[in-house]
């Protein structure tokens, strides 16, 4: 399946070959090899029904660097506030724009949008479920630093129950051979059953633990996520786990020299600023790759 007019709903829908094509074009864009009027005349609709900093801005910057116009639809200031359905909102944006980017706190929103819209839909995060473009950036970052996406020992640390970025990242990295995944989290924030069964079905080599110390010396990558406060059904449950983990220089003691720390950001209190100035820090590289990768994504889909 080619990229033209393709919906981007889940990282699961993309093969290693698809991702290779995306990463190759990202390399070119990273080196400045692109035409700034490639997408001239296209209008991109950004529908954000939940707060976002990097994803919304980087999609907007990516579109503008290629010459496209961007309409920002913010739920709070729209007819959704008056009770208009998402169905009608998507119908309207499908008429007005050439490509729709949607973020929502409700799981399945992007798939629903893709059922309604004829234009391609990109999922910019739906509830606790998927964040495919973040996963693409995460994989690209690892490839750039480690020069490979296979034969890696990867720790994914934090809120694995509610974190869509962590779940999408895991589903992305297990596509590549000979990777070992350590799902590290407090017991309350373990991977959901359907995710664990999916990983078993995919034949992924994965282990669960609550203790980073047990595995730190093996890791090539440590992917840290914040606790997803907004997705806890009960605020008291959030308070129980809040501050239950934090990565600082001490917690990385005994790790391999080549270990890198990723984080999809925003961070709250789980990742110490003292990592920022070390060789481990890869999260600002993720941020910087976000724009060329999303440029490549838009141009492959609209091309």
């Amino acid at each position, binding site marked *: 399946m080619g990229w033209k007019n393709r919906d981007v709903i889940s990282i699961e829908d993309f093969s290693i070959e698809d991702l290779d094509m995306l990463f190759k074009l990202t390399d070119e864009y990273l080196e400045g090899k692109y035409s700034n009027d490639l997408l001239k005349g296209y209008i991109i609709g950004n529908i954000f029904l939940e707060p976002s900093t990097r994803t919304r801005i980087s999609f907007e910057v990516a579109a503008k660097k290629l010459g496209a116009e961007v309409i920002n639809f913010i739920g709070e200031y729209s007819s959704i506030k008056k*009770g208009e*359905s*998402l*169905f009608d909102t998507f119908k309207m944006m499908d008429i007005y724009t050439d490509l729709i980017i949607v973020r*929502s*706190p*409700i*799981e*399945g*929103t992007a*798939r*629903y949008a893709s059922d309604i819209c004829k234009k391609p839909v990109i999922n910019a995060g*739906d*509830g*606790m*479920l998927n964040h495919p473009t973040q996963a693409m950036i995460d994989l690209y970052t690892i490839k750039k630093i480690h020069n490979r996406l296979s034969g890696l020992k990867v720790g994914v640390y934090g809120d694995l129950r509610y974190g869509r970025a962590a779940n999408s990242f895991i589903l992305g990295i297990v596509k590549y051979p000979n990777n070992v995944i350590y799902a590290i989290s407090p017991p309350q924030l373990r991977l959901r*059953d*359907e995710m664990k069964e*999916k990983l078993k079905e995919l034949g992924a080599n994965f282990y669960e633990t609550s203790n980073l110390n047990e595995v730190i010396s093996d890791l090539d990558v440590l992917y840290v996520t914040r606790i997803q406060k907004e*997705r806890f059904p009960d605020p008291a449950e959030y308070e129980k786990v809040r501050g239950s983990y934090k990565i600082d220089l001490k917690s990385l003691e005994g790790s391999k020299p080549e270990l890198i720390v990723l984080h999809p950001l925003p961070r709250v209190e789980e990742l110490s600023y003292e990592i920022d100035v070390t060789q481990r820090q890869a999260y600002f590289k993720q941020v910087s790759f976000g724009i060329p990768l999303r440029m490549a994504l838009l141009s492959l889909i609209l091309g």
Partner: protein
Amino acid sequence: MTEEIEMKVTKIRNGTVIDHIPNGRALSVLKLLGLTGKEGLTIALVMNVKSKKIGIKDVVKVENLELEPSLVSRLALIAPTATINIIRDYKVYEKRKIILQDVIENILKCTNPTCISRQTNEPIVSKFKVISKNPLKLQCMYCNRYLLEHEIISQITEGGG
């Protein structure tokens, strides 16, 4: 119909015989059909009898009622092994096979309150794919949440969910 059952329940003249119901599910089948006994229909219910096909089974016979085809797809969710015989003048007039579809649409409700299919102001119908037939296990096609057999039976028979 085995001899054992015929000894326990006489043949019906007109109506529906639902045979090969998994044992213990006959009462759920009656609930699904909306039969409480107050309708005045003659209903025979046999539970836990031997079956060559499924080991132990339940059977429901309802006189003067022909099962609507729309109920058959719902019945597949709680009694996937069942067979339906429509009886007219003591003879099998029609056999209706129960087929569990690969995708179950607009019958069940996702248990995840933040699933898009649960949003009441959207014109959306629930969609589940069948992950396993025995025990029955479905997965929401929007949010990936599983729906397990006991939740399915509860929703079908009690409208719970």
